[in-house]
């Protein structure tokens, strides 16, 4: 009887949409190495490095029969995360922020030379990064905003990849939790570091505010202050995944537990977890409510976006679902978005308009497993989408076809 129940339980689990969907760590490439493609590469680098470290570096130095040894282990884990793990994640963040964030928007829009300066992370170096560039034409204000916000946009996209994986798996590793916190709250940290005068040129948030306020002034609209941004960005703290990550890291320091649960609400067998993101965008600012669903339904999220541009209130809705169809080993994921935004994708700085336009995006991603030995395998991924001109995090601003290809690595 026990065997029958066990078999039934395994069968039910294996046939459930959530269990059927084992998320690989995906690295996608496109011709411009855009923000979205770059974020997948950074997320995969982070996952692979953490995985390799887990195999090589222990989580405890001693067995723990007594308090001194336990204290030594707690101290070891704390120091390991602060002085070994966190600098690696900071380096990855700065690399991603500069090369795939600012660099992604620059490559996508312009043809001039781009240079990067990335310092050794703290506490071993300054930890700063910068992107220098020469543009082959004069940018529009919306393009300047996209470049300034591109770094924070890219880190937010990496965070969303980490969060999606955690939600689908129902758990995360302390190292993923650390990466999540550092990447997810990059925008809040950057905004918090902006003083009342808006900082010197080269500070992303300061540059963003200057450009936005100039744009708003030319439209006769009110501008934004650093204080206003700081207050509004607190909405991004309404994020249970961030709370789980924080708790999981503290617990890991305390007892070495490497499995951080990601509990969700459960409604009729459907797992549900909402979280809020605050973004700087090419037209202004934006609040996003991401509703992640799983369990009885295939992993999906429904995102509601509402923003602020100089004269209007842009909005958008997006739906992304994993495994919408399967045939012959192929798995199809799909996404669709619709929005109303100012026309941000123009290239003529003399023609800056503020009224809202409707835009849409549809995207299909197909993946197929390949095995190159009895032990090792991966999946090939091809992603094709079509979109109108407009802002979707990670996607090119222009309208047209967006094609990406890459691999998915099964990382446990």
């Amino acid at each position: 009887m026990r065997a029958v129940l066990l078999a039934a339980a395994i069968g039910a689990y294996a046939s459930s949409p959530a269990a059927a969907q084992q998320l690989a760590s995906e690295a996608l490439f496109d011709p411009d190495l855009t923000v979205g493609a770059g974020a997948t590469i950074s997320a995969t680098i982070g996952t692979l490095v953490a995985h390799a470290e887990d195999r090589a570096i222990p989580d405890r130095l001693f067995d723990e029969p007594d308090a001194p040894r336990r204290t030594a282990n707690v101290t070891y884990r704390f120091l390991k995360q602060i002085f070994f793990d966190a600098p690696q994640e900071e380096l990855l963040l700065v690399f991603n922020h500069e090369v795939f964030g600012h660099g992604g928007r620059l490559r996508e829009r312009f043809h001039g030379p781009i240079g990067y300066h990335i310092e050794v992370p703290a506490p071993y170096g300054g930890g700063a990064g910068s992107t220098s560039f020469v543009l082959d034409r004069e940018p529009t204000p919306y393009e300047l905003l996209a470049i300034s916000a591109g770094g924070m946009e890219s880190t937010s996209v990496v965070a969303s990849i980490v969060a999606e994986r955690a939600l689908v798996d129902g758990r995360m590793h302390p190292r993923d939790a650390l990466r999540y916190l550092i990447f997810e709250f990059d925008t809040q940290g950057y905004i918090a570091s902006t003083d009342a005068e808006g900082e010197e040129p080269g500070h992303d948030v300061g540059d963003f505010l200057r450009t936005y306020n100039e744009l708003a002034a030319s439209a006769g609209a009110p501008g934004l202050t650093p204080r206003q941004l700081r207050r509004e960005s607190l909405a991004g703290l309404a994020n249970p995944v961030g709370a789980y990550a924080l708790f999981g890291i503290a617990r890991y320091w305390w007892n070495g537990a490497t499995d951080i649960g990601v509990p969700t609400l459960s409604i009729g067998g459907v797992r549900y977890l909402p979280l809020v993101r605050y973004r700087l965008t090419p037209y202004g600012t934006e609040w996003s409510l991401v509703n992640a669903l799983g369990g009885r339904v295939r992993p999906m999220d429904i995102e509601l976006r509402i923003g602020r541009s100089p004269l209007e209130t842009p909005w958008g809705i997006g739906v992304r679902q994993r495994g919408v169809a399967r045939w012959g080993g192929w798995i199809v994921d799909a996404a669709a978005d619709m929005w109303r935004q100012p026309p941000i994708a123009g290239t003529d700085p003399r023609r800056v308009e503020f009224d809202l336009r409707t835009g849409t995006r549809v995207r299909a991603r197909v993946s197929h497993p390949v095995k190159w030995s009895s032990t090792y395998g991966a999946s090939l991924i091809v992603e094709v989408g079509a979109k109108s001109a407009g802002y979707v995090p990670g996607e090119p601003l222009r309208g047209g076809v967006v094609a990406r290809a890459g691999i998915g690595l099964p990382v446990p």
Partner: protein
Amino acid sequence: MAQPVVAVVNTNPDVVEVLKARIESAGFVVLVIHIAEIRAGLDVRAIFAQHDPKVIVYDVVPPYERNWRLLQHLRETTLVGRQFVLTSPNERALAKLVGRDETVYEILNDGAEIDAIVQAVREAARARPTS
């Protein structure tokens, strides 16, 4: 006698084309410079020394403060004393920065306001350089 040179500093090829044609037909030689070239490090001093334009038709585009700052920098460094005719796609937006001492000619991408600009170029070309 050589025809006087007018420099057109702009961002938009359509506007440049219209301005160039109309200013040339008024008897000037037109030197075209794109603002992105200046930001990219074009040796403006050398080019202006070579061509010695009598008037610079300079277009200030959004974001206005950023581009106004560039123009101010040029006026205080490499283009000291030159005669300018300022254009913009939004005269009212730029007027807040420029003040009342200077006229801004609004020029849209269809070039509808060209006559006034050509007239301003003629008058500026007759004016003596300021220092």
